[in-house]
């Protein structure tokens, strides 16, 4: 079939749009940052035996939910805190898939190196379960590492011209909630599978639980309002106390929901009373609230 010159030209243009000339050096640097971040944030989980156990005790439904929730978290994080402002949703989805893929590979390699995966000896379900659970934490780390560990990716000129683009990724309230959830999952997820959460929860008196809840709220306020000068400056002074209360409540609520999710995933709610579940959620909430507050600061 004869191709008309116009068609040839447009085909070439389309190819150039798909296969861009972004320098390989930049891509390699991004991957290096991503891998570093992935390991930095997920090494505690990769070295935690309760997480390995969750690999063969989790049901397929739980694993499927985990994969989907992680993908949604990555979409949210890449949208509101990603490094390249102005990217389309298509790119955000592609980047999120890449991060999960890198997470799966890293997770498999590290677990194999630690002799936690023994192909041929272990059942496929055990290998897949362990790899998938660890990979989800690694992929969030990859995403954060790619976005936050940058120091010289952009040339100075690019930084100047991108300042206006930066405004595009300025998250609203919803974006803040998404980032808070990412932070809470990342920090809370590191501790949720451990036995210590149960131990602290069941041995705590109601007074201790109340103190932990108060400490969590205090941490949220301190992190967001007394260290986040950028965020504080945005708030009109006359509404300061309203936003202080609002943001603190939302942040803590997000932290509690994230805590409950990871505890449920690791089977901590099985066969326990509502009060015990609540205790565990508040205990983990101390860490998650810090993660939720800090997660919002990751946009800086």
């Amino acid at each position, binding site marked *: 079939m004869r191709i008309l010159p116009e068609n040839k030209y447009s085909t070439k243009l389309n190819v150039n749009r798909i296969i861009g000339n*972004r320098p390989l050096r930049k891509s390699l640097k991004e991957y290096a940052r991503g891998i570093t971040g992935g390991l930095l944030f997920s090494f505690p989980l990769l070295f935690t035996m309760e997480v390995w156990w969750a690999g063969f*005790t989790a049901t397929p439904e739980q694993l499927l939910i985990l994969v989907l929730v992680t993908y949604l978290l990555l979409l949210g994080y890449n949208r509101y805190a990603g490094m390249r*402002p102005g990217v389309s949703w298509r790119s955000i989805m592609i980047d999120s898939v890449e991060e999960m893929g890198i997470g799966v590979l890293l997770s498999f390699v590290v677990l194999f190196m630690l002799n936690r995966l023994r192909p041929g000896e272990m059942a496929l379900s055990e290998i897949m379960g362990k790899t998938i659970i660890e990979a989800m934490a690694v992929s969030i780390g990859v995403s954060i590492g790619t976005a936050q560990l940058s120091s010289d990716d952009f040339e100075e000129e690019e930084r100047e011209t991108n300042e206006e683009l930066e405004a595009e990724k300025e998250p609203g309230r919803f974006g803040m909630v998404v980032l808070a959830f990412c932070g809470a999952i990342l920090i809370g997820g590191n501790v949720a599978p451990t036995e210590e959460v149960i131990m602290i929860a069941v041995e705590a008196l109601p007074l201790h639980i109340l103190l932990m809840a108060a400490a969590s709220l205090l941490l949220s306020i301190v992190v967001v309002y007394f260290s986040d000068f950028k965020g504080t400056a945005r708030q009109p002074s006359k509404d300061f106390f309203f936003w202080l209360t609002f943001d603190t409540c939302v942040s803590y609520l997000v932290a509690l929901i994230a805590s409950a999710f990871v505890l449920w995933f690791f089977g901590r709610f099985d066969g326990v009373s509502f009060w015990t579940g609540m205790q565990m959620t508040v205990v983990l909430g101390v860490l998650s609230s810090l993660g939720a507050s800090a997660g919002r600061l990751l946009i800086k």
Partner: protein
Amino acid sequence: MTTDKAKRKHNPDEKNWLEWLVFCVSLLLLLSILGYLVYQVSSYKAQDPDVYAEAQPDPSVMAPNRYQVAVYNKGGSTAEEVITEFILYTDGKEKEKAELMTAFSPKDSKQEGWVIFSGQPSDKDSVVARIVSFKKP
């Protein structure tokens, strides 16, 4: 204007061949995982663990009456804290007992260990393995 220029100069959606390669491999991995999980979800039936154990003589210089044991789980879920009892019979009479505790026995798994009885092994020895208890994680 500056924004447009920046967008033209450094299109954030632009990807090179390496990034597309990583994306394709990642997509393939993810689709395989999702396919595997969807298959598992559709075929999953909640089943109890089904644990049993076997013992084979495995003498060593320091422990001549040693047995290599394996705990299998052919059930549909993981068993936790599996306690297995091994009884040594000599000439049909119970002579000695040994116990092995396995922290976890995932489904379709084989956990290996050793139990050591006192004295010298004899041709009239036989070992019977029995799962005493386990719990669900």
